[in-house]
């Protein structure tokens, strides 16, 4: 879906947004019964470099500072992180980390964050704009990629047709929405019906909602181990501490 079309469908009442350099989208929109959402994003299939990450972060901080409690819709049609020596020299990892912090902080401070994937998104850019939100939905055209199959073939030294066959058996490595959803990365796919209503419900959800994606992946049978392994670590850690407490002599009785 094209950006203008998407904005009209998601926010039929009104929206006032612009795209500045580095493909950074920002503005506001009306949703639900006369409520206001902040709209930010990374669009026009732009890679995310140090300037873009900083600019997007500044719009998120602006919302936190001046519009308490306002939910944030994050529209995404990106590439990967920008692959330039200069960006890495300047510490792109810190810029992407900073952007993720701004989104997580927004959630913790009462701003519900909803990612809407309407194009591509890959690797570091996907982590810092899509996978960091309280909830991530995909609309037609949404196509998450970690790495394309030819590149995976090169690294794994497996023929591409073998990889294609494998990707039908497991969602764990191949690109695409059909694989991102069963593992819990994408919470909902909004294919048809009233997208504006679906978005309004998502925006009214809990800010800073607990990260349940591993449990969702287990429920959807796309990621069977993660939730159980994470829980077991905590159980073993707690059992160790409990055992030590029991062995300690009681001094207060």
């Amino acid at each position: 879906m094209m950006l203008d079309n998407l904005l009209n469908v998601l926010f039929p009442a009104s929206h006032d947004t612009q795209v500045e350099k580095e493909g950074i989208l920002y503005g506001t929109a009306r949703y639900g019964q006369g409520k206001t959402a902040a709209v930010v994003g990374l669009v026009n299939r732009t890679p995310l470099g140090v300037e873009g990450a900083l600019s997007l972060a500044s719009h998120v901080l602006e919302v936190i500072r001046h519009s308490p409690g306002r939910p944030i819709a994050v529209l995404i049609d990106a590439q990967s992180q920008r692959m330039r020596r200069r960006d890495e020299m300047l510490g792109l990892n810190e810029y992407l980390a900073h952007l993720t912090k701004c989104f997580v902080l927004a959630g913790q401070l009462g701003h519900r964050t909803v990612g809407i994937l309407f194009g591509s998104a890959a690797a570091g850019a996907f982590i810092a704009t899509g996978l960091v939100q309280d909830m991530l939905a995909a609309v037609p055209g949404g196509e998450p990629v970690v790495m394309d199959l030819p590149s995976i073939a090169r690294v794994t030294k497996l023929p591409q047709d073998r990889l294609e066959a494998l990707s039908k058996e497991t969602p764990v490595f191949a690109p695409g929405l059909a694989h991102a959803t069963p593992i819990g990365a994408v919470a909902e796919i909004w294919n048809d019906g009233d997208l504006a209503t679906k978005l309004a419900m998502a925006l009214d959800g809990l800010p800073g909602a607990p990260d349940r994606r591993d449990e969702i992946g287990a429920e959807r049978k796309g990621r069977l181990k993660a939730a159980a392994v994470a829980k077991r670590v905590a159980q073993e850690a707690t059992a160790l501490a409990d055992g030590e407490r029991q062995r300690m002599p009681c001094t207060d009785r």
Partner: protein
Amino acid sequence: MKNALAKYRKWSWYEATARERIAALLDSGSFTEFIGPEKREISPHLVLFDLPEAFDDGIIVGRGMVQSRQVLLAAQEGRFMGGTFGEVHGAKLVGLLRYARDDQDAPRVVLLLLDTGGVRLQEANVGELAVSEIIRAVLEARMAGVTVIAMIGGRAGCFGGGGIIAGCCSRIVISEQGRTSVSGPEVIETNMGVEEFDSRDRPLVWRTTGGKTRRLLGGADAYAEDSIDSFRDAAFSLLDRIPAFELDTVEKEHARLAQRLEKFGQCHDAPEIWKAMGIAEPDGIADLSDEVFNQIAQAQKEANHDAR
């Protein structure tokens, strides 16, 4: 036993395995591993690619003591699949961080011995999702008052999602051998061409992603010699100045990163940055001893901050 450990302590962090780092970093006999290799919690996915598994999936998580102080710890094994994040590997770290976040009686310090090429491509989707769950858990743990310290100096460096995770930690310790970035040099060369980044030009690689560059720019908070003793001392020297993860810190970080772009955004190579920082002999940085380098780094405004 004591002698054996003393030997490890002087050992190169770079050369040591993950288990050797733990043995020498922690007080003798204080470590308890969670989901240890005897549990054989292996990757369920590598078999599809006819690849051998590791019984710990390339990461060790547990609890121990450093100089009689309780810590939680995770150590990646860079020699197994490049220390990459797969489903089980990532989930062990997620579990450790969530435990620290949720249990007020858990140790308040988490050490992350990062040694990773990033996401494991054979498990790309679940590995990337694990990275984002780890980021979320790091930040939530920090918000609950937990200190998370990244230690970077291993063979695999700290790349891809690992670099972003490090940037979310309370503090970062790095050695000269420690390299960190998002896209690694080989990935940039493959995608953008050798004129963009010649990954075989070792000096260029080191001064773009290496520990000295990161430390001078403020991308790392302490610089360690390449020994396990030095990493321990550097990490503990940071503990009395830990930034809280809150709006004020994030705004300060924003200003810091904006200023970096403003001052150095036009530079083409690291020595240009060092020159602009006012360092007397920028071309000699690579050859400085650890001690002299540390003195220079400690005197730089950009390198020493509470904005992380």
